[in-house]
């Protein structure tokens, strides 16, 4: 039996001591920034605290931590990409139309949330859903823009809405509860 196998399911505290330094240096190589790496390593363990996992060995724990941490890196990159696009948009607006700094920030946060919510959908479905929900365009208008049928737009929007509803439900209803 290899020494990296855990004798009994380890506590989060044990996992932290066993893997934190490794995770942080892994993140530093990936992000090239020590402060961000420290933040994300911290967030990774917070996530582990919130939804404890059972690991039988160190490699298994590290595989999991790497998946979560990698996801957080991507969240970070995506958030930045959305921010950059939003700032680009603001930069070309005439001054009279520029939203207040507070509104700018609220919109940015909303965009980042929406991006997170929609990213596993196909690009066209996500686009159709945003144009319908945020801009109030009709299915026919969206169909013209995406080059698909109105019917397909309807399917996209139903699917996208259902997907978002499930995410909301997942984040709200703890797993395993079933009230009689």
């Amino acid at each position, binding site marked *: 039996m290899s020494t990296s196998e855990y004798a009994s399911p380890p506590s989060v505290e044990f996992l932290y001591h066993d893997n934190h330094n490794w995770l942080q240096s892994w993140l530093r190589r990936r992000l090239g920034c020590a402060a961000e790496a420290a933040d994300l390593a911290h967030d990774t363990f917070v996530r582990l605290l*919130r*939804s404890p*996992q059972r690991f039988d060995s160190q490699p298994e724990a590290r595989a*999991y931590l790497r*998946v*979560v941490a*990698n*996801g957080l*890196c*991507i*969240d970070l*990159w*995506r958030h930045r990409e*959305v921010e950059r*696009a*939003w700032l*680009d*948009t603001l930069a070309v607006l005439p001054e009279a*139309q520029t*939203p207040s700094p507070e*509104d700018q920030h609220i*919109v940015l*946060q*909303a*965009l980042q*949330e*929406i*991006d997170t*919510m929609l*990213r596993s959908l196909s*690009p066209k479905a996500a686009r159709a859903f*945003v*144009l*319908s*929900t*945020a*801009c109030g*365009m*009709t*299915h*026919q*208008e969206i169909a013209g823009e995406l080059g698909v049928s109105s019917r397909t737009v*309807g*399917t996209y*929007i*139903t*699917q996208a*809405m*259902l997907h*978002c*509803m499930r*995410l*909301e*439900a*997942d984040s*709200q*209803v703890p797993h395993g*509860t*079933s*009230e009689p």
Partner: protein
Amino acid sequence: MNPIPPGLRAPSHEAMEQAASWFSLLQSGNATNADRARWQTWLASGAESQAAWAFVERVSLRFQPLQAVPAPRLAADALQAANQRLARRRTLLFGFAAMAGSGSLLGWAVWRQAGWVDPLLAHFADHHTGIGERRDLVLADGTQVWLASASAFDQDYRADLRRLRLRSGEILIQTAVDRERPFVVDTAHGRLRALGTRFNVRLDEAGGTQLAVYEGAVEITLAHGGQSTVVAAGKQVRFTADRWEETTAADPAREAWSRGILLAQDMSLAQVVAELGRYRRGHIAVAPEVAGLTVLGSYPLDDLNGTLAMLQQALPIQVRQPLPWWTTIEARTR
């Protein structure tokens, strides 16, 4: 925001689907007063539909801040611009982690089940098709690959080996000759080595790989244990990681899809519908009393409604579509 009544379980899948399709209809620009009245009736029909609708409202509320911009369209376009840049940068691993990362999407429990890994990776594979899409492509060495609906593979060409990894669905391959580099296709169940050939590989719902060989021959090596066997032209076989099943005559239908045709030779209606389902999102239900009807003939895969109309002509069945994504097939009533 309507709070979810305490003590209520998450609404059923059906109620969530209904709520989502009501949302789609009400937003479409084509909803009539009668539609709105029907929606109201549905909403009043019980706590479950109300709870499901509360989720629709929650999701909609997330978009509300965008109204703070003079033209919400600008914000929507910013999102689009960001997505296009991200799509260009996305790589296989990158995308996979994106799905596993945001905890709420997919938990570790799902991830660690090997059976789920390939379908997940399929989303980010080098070459993939959406539902209802077919595509053919020519790889760098001249090998031709046809991808069926909802299929995906990764391409890994090296100096000494040409390797494809089938992640989901079905591919038909016509290999180009290259004496230096063998051509292999890997699935979760084993390795297929092409010996100058045209062959079809399909991952089936039951968790196996189906191989049909039309020209040349293909050698199967099982993922577990590593035994191998050669399948000759005109033969087909299904295998899992541990064993292969009896070899039978290759079904021409397994090749016909590459031309957009569903070739039914003695298939049951239920099998035909399952095949059509691969090409279409949404739900197609077949009533048990007609599921066993025998279907013969060739049908277009790209035109579901046309195919359903043809089936309705040929068989004593009735096709109904109460919602765009909901099709039911029942016995025809006289």
